[in-house]
């Protein structure tokens, strides 16, 4: 049964946004709508016929100004399964000059008449900047430490499939919250859907005033795990462990590594999630990551393709003059 705050109207009013720059600004029912839309693609992707010519003739450009393997691949597969012409513009960080070049690149993509542009960039706000300059829908595939909305949506879809409801669900997010756009989008998304969100990190990796985003702040991982229904581990970027934020990888694991023993503190059916790529043996032990019953890590990847298909479909409906959306 769908709770009333998740019911959405028919047609374009269900998702009246031009692009997807972030979870901030989305109403709970709009998030729910995208999750519902994704279900059909989960279904289709599990079948033998994995292609529907919904977006045939449309050009989708994946402009990745920051290195990515899985997100880029996921968006590419999503576009192709919907029949679109997908072009990847992978720009290594080093070869792209910052500055006007970013806007100029956006204008160039715009002039090539892309029907949707997917952007990843190392600077917070870069995607919003580009979205304001181009005519087509823009999807944020991660901007700096700001947002990564499709990751939050695929995580929500993963949780919804396993747990059904979000109300009262306790989700613990542990790791480098400070530098994590995944954490920010997930906090906004899960809190908006009614979950109780806990964040856990040492003070140096915890952003100031994060409790204003409606989360409970923990520094003690064991306490944060108590009663948790979902445990979401974040990747620790190894270059941040040079003594500036964390004394060493093994010290980090000592306090914040998800071991089988630690997982015992959470609910007995708690889900284990990780946006990947994992540092096995640092933030998460292999025997936890590979728990067949509990680990959702590969399911997250699967949901990622479905969510991105839903986003590409919904955001191009206006351009495709779909009935009720044009």
């Amino acid at each position, binding site marked *: 049964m769908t709770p009333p705050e998740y019911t959405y109207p028919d047609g374009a009013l269900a998702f009246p946004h031009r692009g997807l720059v972030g979870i*901030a600004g989305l109403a709970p029912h709009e998030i729910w709508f995208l999750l519902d839309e994704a279900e059909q693609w989960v279904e289709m992707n599990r079948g033998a016929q994995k292609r529907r010519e919904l977006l045939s003739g449309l050009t989708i450009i994946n402009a990745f100004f920051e290195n990515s393997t899985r997100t880029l691949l996921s968006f590419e597969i999503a576009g192709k399964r919907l029949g679109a012409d997908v072009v990847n513009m992978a720009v290594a960080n080093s070869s792209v000059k*910052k*500055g*006007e070049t*970013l*806007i100029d690149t956006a204008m160039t993509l715009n002039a090539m008449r892309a029907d949707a542009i997917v952007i990843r*960039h190392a*600077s*917070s*706000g*870069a995607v*919003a*900047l580009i979205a304001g300059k181009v005519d087509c829908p823009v999807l944020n595939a991660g*901007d*700096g*430490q*700001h*947002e990564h909305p499709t990751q939050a949506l695929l995580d929500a879809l993963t949780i919804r499939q396993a747990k059904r409801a979000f109300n009262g669900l306790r989700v613990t997010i542990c790791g480098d919250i400070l530098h994590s*756009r995944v954490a*920010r989008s997930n906090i906004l998304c899960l809190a908006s859907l009614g979950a109780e969100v806990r964040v856990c990190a040492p003070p140096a990796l915890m*952003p*100031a*005033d*994060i409790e*204003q*985003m409606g989360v409970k702040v923990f520094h003690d991982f064991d306490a944060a795990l108590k009663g948790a229904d979902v445990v979401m581990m974040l990747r620790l970027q190894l270059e941040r462990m040079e003594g500036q934020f964390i004394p060493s990888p093994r010290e980090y694991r000592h306090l914040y590594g998800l071991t089988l023993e630690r997982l015992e503190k959470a609910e007995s059916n708690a889900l284990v999630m990780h946006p990947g790529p994992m540092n096995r043996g640092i933030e998460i032990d292999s025997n936890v990551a590979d728990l067949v019953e509990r680990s959702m890590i590969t399911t997250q990847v699967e949901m990622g393709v479905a969510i991105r298909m839903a986003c590409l479909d919904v955001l191009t409906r206006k351009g495709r003059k779909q009935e009720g959306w044009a």
Partner: protein
Amino acid sequence: MSLHAPLTITNGRLLLADGRIETGSIRCEAGFITAIGADVQAQDGDTVHDARRSLIAPGLVDIGVFAIDKPAFHFGGVTRAALMPDQNPPLDTPARVRFAAQSGKPDFWVHPLAAATQELGGTALAEIAMMRDAGARAVCTGRRWVGDSGTMLRLLQYTGMLGMTVITHAEDGGIVGNAVATSGEMATRLGLPSAPAQAEALAIARDIALAEMAGAAIHFRNVTTAAGLDLVRGAKARGLNVTAGVSPAYFMLSNLAIGAFRTFTHLSPALRCEDDRQAVIAAVADGTIDIVASGHDPRGPEDKRLPFADSAPGMAGAETLLPLTLSLVRDGVIDMARAFDLLAANPARLLGVNAGRLEVGAEADIAVVDTERPWIVNSDKMAASAGNTPFDRQPVQGRVLALFKGGVVVRTKKTAG
């Protein structure tokens, strides 16, 4: 011997050096004020300017600007500005200082600030005495703080001996790092690199201690937090030669303004929280803040049309300096005399120049101001070389109707409001 005829500005409300406002006229000869008051009359041969009951005030003296942007300064009523050493190349040798000191004359005077350290690197002292004799009016650490306490102590000992004030940027560099915002909910939501506001108080505490040790004068260019202002207040109470400045952005805006990643609000120091903004207003009122300055730093799209963290900090502030300061007068925070102390008399005193107040013998730098005239800031139509103002579309009051430098008119055009 001036080539220009004597000037008499008649029929105005004179803002006198003692703070009184009196109807009358002011007469200038050979670049200096020679008579002021109710009974002053224009003589035969004088150039006469009718102020039409507007305020006759000293031209503004703006400490710590990054560019010589004459149209903007003239629009804003600024007749002198102290130029930051952060030029390309930096003002760290006597020749560059001498060149900069001449660069605005005759209608705008530039007072270069000597770089405290070579190439503003924060380690080796620059040739400060030679730069002083080449025209530098004070010493400045530039956009950055001198991180090494030993270097800062030796700098202050040296400037103390030379009788020069050190103007410093008050933010602990180790804490600030590459931050572009003040830590708090806004920076957290936007995912911007941020640093705690306490970085300012830390820097001020150290520098006050070092200045006291060295017996030197120190001026903090922007004091923007309650904790930093408390330290300045305490130092003043102990009789130390400590002064503080601020730009209007810090009493007008809080870090809420950085929402939507508006790079025109990317300033250095970063905008603070609302409590700090209120503390700045209180410090302007109680005298803790001595100087209000524009920090004029025009930046074009190549520096500003970027993701927030990649953009350059700074705002074009010369045109809005006076009207935004006058908003404090309208709000009853300060009176008109105090406004011009903050904008002209105090900065002139810090620089040791004979200007910034209307009295016989002072240089005739005069602004005729309609303090009530309303207008709307428009970043597309600024006099400045770039329109990077966080006050775009904001209605303000107060406009300079005429500006005189050394008794010679530089601007009288009555622009449409």
